[in-house]
């Protein structure tokens, strides 16, 4: 996807003499690398499709629950009491004009509004956890790479420890020991906090390693020496000189980390350490569907598809961003 960037007609026909004269009084605008990346990204259909799906999903998660029906209202009139599944609809899904995605077996709760509310939980947890891990990973990675020596040794060994941690077991155990009321949070707020902590605090080493590696090579570039020889302190070099150069890998890795975290949140919810029912979550809905999947396959397909489409969209966007920001890396 490295087709040449479109050059507007006027630009292609520019005469060198005009350029030297500065063409009138209009200031010459440079093409920043960000702008070039945007021009490339605009041509990548898959990435744009992913971006559109993500945008729709965010809008839906933010505003959908205000327009949809109550996700916790029971509609037991739609349930066949002997089979414990919706009476009508394709494959006993309960799909109808009132319930586009069908209803839950047993309780008859509306699936569409539960999926939308679940999207909200998934996205909130994934975004916050990614924010936590990207922040920690970037700061520690750039510090380790720039200063080297014992600082690097300490941070790199810390990364090893975090990566070796049995994360799933730790999460399950942590939910068991966290009190009902902590740091002013309770109920689902506290659960979301715990999920963000577990996912965010244990996935920073991945991005930390990438940032450290990039910093190691950037540190040897002469513009760092140039900045230091002008009297710049470490803070200036780290955050004004190095960080702008690390932005591309950080953005790409962030968009690729979000779907991983969505999956991780779904896995934790599936295991019952996510938000507390009746608050819906995609992983929780999947785990509810497991015992009856032969009777009511749709109940399992819907949350599965939701996870699949979301993760796919983020991955397509992330891949597109990587191609656009660094066409050499394949």
């Amino acid at each position: 996807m490295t087709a040449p960037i479109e050059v507007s007609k006027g630009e292609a026909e520019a005469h060198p003499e005009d350029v030297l004269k500065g063409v009138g009084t209009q200031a010459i605008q440079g093409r920043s690398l960000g702008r070039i990346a945007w021009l490339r990204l605009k041509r990548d259909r898959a990435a744009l499709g992913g971006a559109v799906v993500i945008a729709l999903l965010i809008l839906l998660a933010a505003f959908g629950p205000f327009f949809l029906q109550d996700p916790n209202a029971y509609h037991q009139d739609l349930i066949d009491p002997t089979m414990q599944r919706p009476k009508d609809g394709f494959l006993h899904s309960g799909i109808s004009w009132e319930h586009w995605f069908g209803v839950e077996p047993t309780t008859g709760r509306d699936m569409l509004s539960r999926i939308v509310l679940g999207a909200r939980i998934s996205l909130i947890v994934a975004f916050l956890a990614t924010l936590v891990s990207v922040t920690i990973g970037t700061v520690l990675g750039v510090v380790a790479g720039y200063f080297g020596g014992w600082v690097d040794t300490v941070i790199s060994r810390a990364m090893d420890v975090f990566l070796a941690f049995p994360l799933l077991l730790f999460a399950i155990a942590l939910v068991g020991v966290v009190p009902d009321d902590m740091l002013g949070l309770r109920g689902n707020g506290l659960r979301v906090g715990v999920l963000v902590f577990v996912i965010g605090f244990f996935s920073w080493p991945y991005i930390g390693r990438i940032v450290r590696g990039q910093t190691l090579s950037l540190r040897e570039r002469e513009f760092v020496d140039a900045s230091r020889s002008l009297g710049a302190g470490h803070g200036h070099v780290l955050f004004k000189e190095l960080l702008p150069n690390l932005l591309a890998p950080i953005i790409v890795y962030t968009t690729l980390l979000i779907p991983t975290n969505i999956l991780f949140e779904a896995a934790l919810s599936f295991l019952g350490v996510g938000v507390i029912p009746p608050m819906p979550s995609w992983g929780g809905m999947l785990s509810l569907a497991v015992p009856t999947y032969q009777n009511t396959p749709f109940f399992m397909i819907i949350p599965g598809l939701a996870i699949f489409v979301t993760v796919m969209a983020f991955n397509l966007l992330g891949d597109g961003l990587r191609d656009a920001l660094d066409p050499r890396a394949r």
Partner: protein
Amino acid sequence: MSSTPLLEVTGLQKHFPVHAGLLRRQVAAVKAVDGVSFSVAKGETLGLVGESGCGKTTTGRMIMRLLDPTAGSITFEGREISRLSQGRMRPLRRDIQMIFQDPYSSLNPRKTVGSIVGAPFHLQDIKTEHGVKRAVQELLELVGLNPEHYNRYPHEFSGGQRQRIGIARTLALKPKLIVADEPVSALDVSIQAQVVNLLEDLQNELGLTYVVIAHDLSVVRHISDRVAVMYLGRMVEIADQADLYTRPQHPYTKALLSAVPVPDPAARKERERIRLTGDVPSPLNPPPGCPFHPRCWKAQPKCATEVPVLSERTPGRSVACHFPED
């Protein structure tokens, strides 16, 4: 040339420790620079030449205090700067600036030319009369670039233009001394002359003093007033440019000069070419005595035991050799 040196370097050393084993004990040291002394008068250009790995860049970086010297002193305008903290060094950086070797890595690719050349003003908190933008555009004009290119990014320029941008940044603080580390070696030959001439014009216009580090002897000959030759972390010969090129006294200098290509085939036949055998010894384990003796065709037993001292034989002409040429 005035008699009080602007920069004086005495006995400068830089040893990089080598660690090994589980406890990371220091087992050896790379003696990158091992006792280098020279002085630069105001307004003159000193060329520092030598093979790759002889310590010329390390010397330059120590003068800039990008590296801390292991031993020795660096005196700038009579003030000892080799032990100053980075904080105390900051105001002095206005007077000592550096031109970097690789114009493709010395400019931050994420910044516009305006913010690269304007950075010195911000970092040193210097107020400019008509604002930073105007000052930057004047600098761009000074180095022969279009001031309208203020908002462009480095990747939109050629190598020669980029080097000019780097020079504009160097000049921003109106330094007294400029350390130029291989200022043209990364450029096309056709562009090299432009940049060398620019450096000379700027020197005449602004009264600059240069320490030019280079391995290209013809560039050094063109730009330098005096030339210092380094070998394996030591100074082997310092002399006026004309003297050094016509009558080299150290065998190493002689060998180095005989390697410069001669464009005239008739003259090429006449001149004596010296082919050095062997490699430069490792600075990890330099030979005892004169560092050059294993490759020197004039070596005597004395050379393997006694280190020759850099001594002034005639005024302005120092050689570190037991048996110098005449």
